[in-house]
């Protein structure tokens, strides 16, 4: 049992960037927009958070910068797909290519610089409880924040009027438009939220998980987050479940190496990607389930006919 504790602690950390990115993308997709640029937005969040934190010495400013960078990238995507009616798949890919390039460009001077990791919470006697203490009460703040955001999104989508409107826009933009909801404005907000969360997910990578900046340090996590949304069949709490599962796979790989299992590290590193494919296949196999749960207008261009 004791040896299990570090496993869970690290798993929660590995899952956190995925939770942020996936929950943001879930809201974006619920509004009917497919943004494939998560990887690019995460990278911009990661590099902005790192650069601002190291320059100002303030993690808070770093996190704000990550949100800002993510939102800016998302608005660029919104401008192209929502205002200029461009193809969402192509624009998402463009956002990722651009984000990879721009983050490496900005981050050139920060490669290899050290940064103190986000401090873990110390909740006094709570953190000292054996097993439960380290797992539940001594993570860094972002781990809790990620879970809180999921709960907030679940409440917003299914228990508020605004959430209902957002889902309506995602199901049928023409119907929502006809009853007078500002489809484009609502989608802009959803896309911006997705960007902010992807930015935070990236920030967690460069500030807490591995406190440093390396080119393309997300290593496909933005794409795994996209797969998680499908895995979760667009339900917020299932995102948590999926992210922890992936966190577990990531850690398994590290532990296997530590335990001296004689599989080359490169082959072990393939695990999260192969797991993503397996999970996608298992979930997508049931075409009806996907059709029932996916927002009906996802990926479609909306141009109101007068």
């Amino acid at each position, binding site marked *: 049992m004791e040896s299990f504790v570090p496993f869970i602690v690290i798993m929660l950390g590995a899952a956190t960037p995925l939770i942020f990115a996936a929950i943001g993308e879930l809201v974006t997709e619920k509004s009917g927009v497919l943004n*494939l640029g998560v990887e690019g937005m995460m990278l911009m969040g990661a590099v902005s958070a790192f650069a601002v934190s190291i320059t100002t010495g303030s993690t808070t400013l770093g996190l704000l910068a990550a949100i800002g960078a993510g939102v800016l990238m998302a608005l*660029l995507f919104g*401008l*192209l797909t929502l205002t*200029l*009616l*461009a*193809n969402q*798949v*192509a*624009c998402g*890919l*463009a*956002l990722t*290519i*651009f*984000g*990879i*390039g*721009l983050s*490496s*460009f900005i981050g*050139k001077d920060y490669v290899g610089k050290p940064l103190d990791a986000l401090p873990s919470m110390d909740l006094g006697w709570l953190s000292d409880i054996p097993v439960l203490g380290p797992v539940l009460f001594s993570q860094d703040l972002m781990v809790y924040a990620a879970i809180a955001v999921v709960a907030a999104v679940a409440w917003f989508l299914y228990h508020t009027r605004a959430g209902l409107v957002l889902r309506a826009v995602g199901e049928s933009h023409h119907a929502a438009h006809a009853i007078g909801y500002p489809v484009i404005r609502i989608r802009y907000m959803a896309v911006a939220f997705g960007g902010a969360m992807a930015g935070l997910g990236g920030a967690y990578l460069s500030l807490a998980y591995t406190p440093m900046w390396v*080119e393309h340090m997300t*290593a*496909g996590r933005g*794409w*795994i987050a*996209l*797969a998680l949304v*499908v895995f979760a069949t667009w339900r917020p709490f299932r995102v948590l479940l999926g992210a922890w599962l992936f966190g577990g796979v990531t850690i398994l790989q590290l532990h296997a190496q530590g335990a001296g299992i004689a599989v*080359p590290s*490169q*082959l072990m*590193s*393939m695990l999260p*990607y*192969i797991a*993503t*494919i397996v999970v*996608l*296949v298992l979930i*997508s*196999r049931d*075409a009806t389930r*996907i059709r029932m749960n996916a927002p009906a207008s996802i990926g479609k261009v909306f*141009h109101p006919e*007068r």
Partner: protein
Amino acid sequence: MRPSLELRSHTPRSILYLTPVIAALLTAFSGGVLFAALGYPPLEALYAFFIQPLTSLNGLAEIGVKATPLVLIGIGLSIGFRGNVWNIGAEGQLTLGAICGGAVALAFYDVEGVWLLPLMVIAGTLGGMAWGAIPALLKTRFNASEILVSLMLTYVATLFLSYLVHGPLMDPEGFNFPQSRLFHDSALLPTLIPFTRLHLGAAIALFIVVAGWFVMARTLIGFQVKVIGLTPAAGGYAGFSQKKVVWMAFLTSGGLAGMAGLFEVAGPIGQLSPSVSPGYGFTAIIVAFLGRLHPVGILLAGLLMALSYLGGEVVQIELGLPLAITGVFQGMLLFFLLGADLFTRYRLRWNRSPAAGTAAGAARPAEAREEAA
């Protein structure tokens, strides 16, 4: 007085061909602004990026070298994109092509023969096809998103290559460097221009451009792909199979990407190393769009993107800018292109009220003109 968009019934050719040029010019302009903002003389930097590589024979040959994989992959991807099949894992298929073709070269490292190179090309192409067949199978059989599967497989392929050059395929006399043996002469592509790196692959890429045009414009399967891409329902009524299009798209693009990968290791690189491509598989996506999914357009777009790689190298050497500037330029170019695409599908109308065109609204255009003046 506000602008509104009106769907075009058909797109004038002029606009279709003009928008990529406008996008390229806007990119150059924004690049200049970026250079100025970073404190570099903009015109000088732009000259270094866009013109200087074109001023020497070696520079021109290098453009051919870098355009070869981009055009090969771009042609393959364009077929899928026309049919709404999104293969974005060409980078992985390229890597598998390099691995399979390279493995053949290494298996016969002490045997020479004219048959070796063709065998490598076949192995590389088949390797890319096999890697492309995985997302095609999972898409057609289990409905799994080909976008995510093909992309995940890219990471798997890169890790696999890294494993091979750190392990089974590592040069035994290479002082533990993560590289394979150097290929010998009959496993290397002959060069077309002496003292440059421009290789036979470039000529093959040109042939593929023609073949790609023929398939899409003159054969039934090309027609089926286009119909399914435009209106899947119509394709269904006509009895065209969506699954067939998915398979055809992935096998073609995977095969061409694999061939491109083999050309890289049997051409400019000459051995297997942990990195066989600076992201050609992803840049080829831009090439396909910039070239309007048309083979000739893809050829021109491939040359321009090759210039962006070369330009990035020149400004790195001359001005000390990071090489990542290439990615920034490529991203910007795609943004401008996708933004400008609006005008291929919609027409901008100034102040046409909903009633305009009916008898009651006949007076409105006159008012509009007054307002405008």
